[in-house]
């Protein structure tokens, strides 16, 4: 066998890794229909017929809610704005503590800061990379208001244990299922095991509208508050004096008709996309089984996986080299990528969020330490390996 490419040998494979092909004639025709109509957005930021958007928005939300059997689906212009909307809708207030995963996209925690809530970081499970219920329970205080669960890489978090803890302590559970569309646990869609949740429609996801997101819930009150916050809710409560005002100051988090038209077509393709990815993931799992020092992904019992990313557990001692060198060496066996999505392996995912400047320096809203100083929290977390987890 020729020596490895990283040592100057010839790469094993010289072909180009295919890039995604996610937009077809269906989406193009749908966009043209919207353009022909001339009505690119039908939202009006005041109560009335157009408060909840136009026909494509309403059709997408109806189709999405029917697909996952949710009572409400509320589209938004990104999943980040979706998470912020949810924080407002569930009543996060200054000083509230929200237990989060440190191993996720930053918005899964920063969403709380916009309402004065403070993210408190629990640790993750070894096999699922999602929140560890044991770690969660240790962090609960009288100030804890909610738990944000992330179904990372498309695998399901330990919802049974997390919901049990939440019920015991009267906490609201938010499911960040950005990477897990079409995923179910015990035959119920993720996003609906907790009190409210949702999915991303960002370009990198399974189905997308360029940017976008969709909130799902079976709770009527939360759904109405989300719709208000999405679309200048201050005007809505002004015309509805019986509604509580708190947290209803809204933004413009509205999806456009063009995006909704694309999302309608994308949603039709989700089942096939998941089936395809499942075949590839099974093939990879089978292949990895024969490699000492690597462990393939674990799929929780009674659930499926969306395979947004496929996680491989690496044991440097057993493999006989460091992870980063291994990744470099494997990638070198393939043709140099022109685009990042052609890269075969990556390492690390994201740096644990509590190591970022916002949490280390406790500066988020304004320059005087709000909301960290408001809650009296000294440190939201320090490095896990240094043992101390939380100093309140």
């Amino acid at each position, binding site marked *: 066998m020729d020596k490895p490419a990283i040592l100057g040998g010839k790469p*094993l494979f010289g072909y180009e890794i295919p890039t995604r092909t996610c937009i077809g004639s269906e989406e193009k025709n749908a966009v043209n229909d919207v353009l022909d109509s001339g009505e690119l957005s039908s939202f009006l930021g005041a109560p009335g017929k157009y408060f909840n958007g136009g026909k494509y928005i309403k059709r997408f939300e109806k189709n999405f809610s029917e697909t996952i059997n949710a009572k409400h689906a509320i589209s938004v212009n990104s999943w980040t704005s979706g998470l912020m909307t949810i924080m407002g809708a569930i009543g996060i207030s200054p000083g509230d503590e929200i237990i989060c995963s440190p191993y996720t*996209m930053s918005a899964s925690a920063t969403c709380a800061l916009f309402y004065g809530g403070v993210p408190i970081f629990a*640790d993750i499970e070894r096999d699922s990379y999602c929140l560890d219920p044991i770690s969660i329970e240790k962090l609960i205080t009288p100030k804890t208001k909610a738990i944000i669960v992330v179904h990372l890489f498309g695998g399901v978090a330990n919802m049974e244990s997390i919901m049990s803890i939440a019920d015991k302590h009267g906490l609201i559970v938010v499911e960040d299922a950005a990477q897990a569309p079409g995923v179910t646990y015990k035959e119920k869609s993720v996003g609906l095991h907790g009190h409210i949740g949702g999915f991303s429609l960002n370009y990198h996801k399974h189905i997308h509208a360029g940017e976008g997101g969709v909130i799902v819930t079976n709770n009527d009150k939360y759904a109405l508050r989300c719709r208000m916050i999405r679309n200048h809710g201050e005007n809505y409560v002004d015309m509805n004096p019986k509604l509580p005002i708190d947290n209803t100051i809204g933004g413009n988090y509205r999806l456009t008709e063009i995006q909704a038209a694309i999302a309608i077509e994308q949603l039709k393709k989700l089942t096939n996309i998941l089936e395809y990815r499942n075949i590839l993931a099974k*093939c*990879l799992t089978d292949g990895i089984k024969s490699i000492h020092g690597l462990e393939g992904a674990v799929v929780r019992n009674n659930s499926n996986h969306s395979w947004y990313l496929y*996680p491989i557990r690496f*044991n440097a001692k057993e493999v006989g080299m460091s992870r980063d060198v291994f990744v470099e060496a494997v990638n070198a066996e393939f043709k140099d990528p022109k685009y990042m999505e052609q890269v075969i392996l*990556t390492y690390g995912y994201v740096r644990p969020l509590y190591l970022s400047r916002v949490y280390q320096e406790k500066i988020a809203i304004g320059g005087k330490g709000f909301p960290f100083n408001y809650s009296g929290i000294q440190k939201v977390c320090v490095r896990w390996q240094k043992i101390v987890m939380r100093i309140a």
Partner: protein
Amino acid sequence: MAEDCYEDSLILTSIVREPITIKIINDLVKAMKKVILFNNEIMDKSGSISSTNVSTIEYLGKI
């Protein structure tokens, strides 16, 4: 666990997606096996290997 994943133990691949083929997945497995066969030689020279920094966050770019 999060720090262990970040610093040492987690590798990710996004090639379990359309229109990647089973052949490419099998080729990935072959490449991993080949690299491990040469682990000693690679580690002996790892100091001279230039990094392309394929951390996942760089890969994802815009999340």
